[in-house]
């Protein structure tokens, strides 16, 4: 029963990791950009949520109404003002510029919020649980997982059933020809980044309710998201959810064996999958 519990908890945790990963996967799919500052943006969103809840007394989940659009605007401006200039054949500029951004965000947060760990207060939601067949499921983890499924379904739907998604795919296929169709790729990229950071905002708030956070933990979240993306296979959003779940289960099962092994066993699971399935489980982009 303990083991089953660990697996179920890990699966639910995987929902959070899938949310970390979805934004990463989206921007890679549209513009082949890997944002090293992605984890720091998750933490930035958590701090924005903290500020909103303390300033207005809103419940953290309601703070999403403000934080999601804010992060979206940040994403659009960042993309058009900075990141679009880095895109091209050379790998270095986007990598190093987002790395610089990561340092800036991290230290900016330190400057504003200090290094003290913070947490968002979500009241009864944090401790509420339901008993299902002998297992005690926290309402928050279940909610997180459900949100992850909904977000990925929503992104998938946007990608394959809307004009915006069509534009995303067209620009991703062939930027020049997409321009000939009247699509301004700089704008499309901006929208993609806005969407990605909107998802990041959701991830950040859910993270900030679940655990305490401080400015230094962004790198770790980037790595979790990245591992979920690679395990699932590049360019496959549902694969990302599977990747997140595998990572989450590896962590909770590892922690069950020895608490010190939680994070490490997640990484080892990732490396194992990299060794046996280098392209992940369900690759779409080669």
């Amino acid at each position: 029963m303990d083991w089953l519990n660990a697996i179920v908890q890990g699966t639910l945790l995987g929902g959070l990791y899938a949310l970390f990963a979805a934004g990463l996967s989206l921007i890679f799919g549209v513009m082949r950009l890997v944002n090293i500052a992605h984890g720091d943006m998750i933490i930035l969103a958590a701090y924005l949520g903290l500020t909103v809840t303390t300033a207005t007394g809103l419940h953290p989940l309601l703070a999403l109404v403000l934080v999601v659009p804010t992060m979206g605007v940040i994403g659009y401006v960042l993309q058009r003002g900075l990141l679009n200039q880095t895109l091209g054949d050379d790998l270095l500029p986007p990598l190093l510029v987002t790395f610089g951004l990561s340092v800036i965000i991290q230290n900016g947060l330190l400057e504003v919020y200090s290094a003290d760990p913070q947490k968002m207060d979500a009241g009864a939601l944090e401790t509420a649980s339901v008993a299902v067949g002998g297992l005690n499921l926290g309402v928050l983890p279940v909610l997180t997982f459900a949100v992850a499924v909904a977000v990925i379904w929503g992104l998938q739907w946007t990608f394959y059933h809307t004009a915006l998604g069509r534009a995303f795919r067209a620009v991703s296929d062939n930027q020049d020809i997409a321009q000939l169709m009247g699509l301004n790729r700089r704008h499309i990229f901006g929208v993609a980044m806005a969407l990605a950071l909107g998802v990041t905002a959701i991830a950040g708030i859910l993270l900030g309710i679940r655990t305490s956070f401080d400015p230094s933990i962004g790198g770790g979240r980037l790595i979790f998201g990245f591992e979920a993306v690679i395990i699932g296979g590049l360019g496959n959003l549902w694969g990302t959810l599977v990747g997140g779940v595998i990572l989450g289960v590896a962590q909770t099962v590892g922690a069950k064996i020895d608490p010190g092994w939680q994070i490490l066993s997640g990484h080892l699971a990732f490396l194992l999958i990299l060794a046996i399935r280098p392209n992940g489980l369900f690759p779409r982009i080669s």
Partner: protein
Amino acid sequence: MPEPILQLHGLDAHYGDFQALYGVDMKVMEGEVLAIIGSNGAGKTTLMRSITGLLSNGPAQIKYRGVDISAQRADEIAVQGLAMVPEGRQLFPSLSVRENLMIGAQVGRKGPWDLDAVYKLFPILEERKDQQSTSLSGGQQQMVAIGRALMANPDLILFDEISLGLAPIIIKDIYEALPGIIGEGMSAIIVEQDISKALSVSSRVYCLQEGRVSLEGASDTVSREDISRAYFGIE
């Protein structure tokens, strides 16, 4: 006297240090079909890329309906009614046939061309509408590329070697369809290596040779000798 829809004045084009076009002057009249011929590497595709804004141009080198568009981006030019069927078709592989057509309409221009009209022109595309565009035959892919450009309801449409890599019978079909496509006041530039095909559908012809205009004339009066001299540079 019809107005020119497109005017090029001393158009240059560069790829890094390499200059591909040297001072090209050219004019396309409203409702006219223009042919551009020239051997491999003469600069025909480069010219198309310059006109559509995919290559950056010097100031005042390209005028569209009297307005200087040299500095505009490709998407800004596209919404003004300039569409292209690019060399090698270049369909979007992640989009279905229908989506490839739909995205052509993204510019949001009104006109006779919509999905139904394209399906009527190329009925096979309706049958294949949900297939991935890469699963079609070469000829069918070319139909999608043409349909995609038409969906923009352009005023000026550029065809870059639409017969390239297609079987003669299919080329014949496509050229037979062309007059019906280009009718109704649309202007067109047809880039073609097959000289007789190009001359048969156009009213005037330009020949490019190593980035320069080597011949300009009416399609029904230019002589074979003039063309071969302009084409191969044989004096």
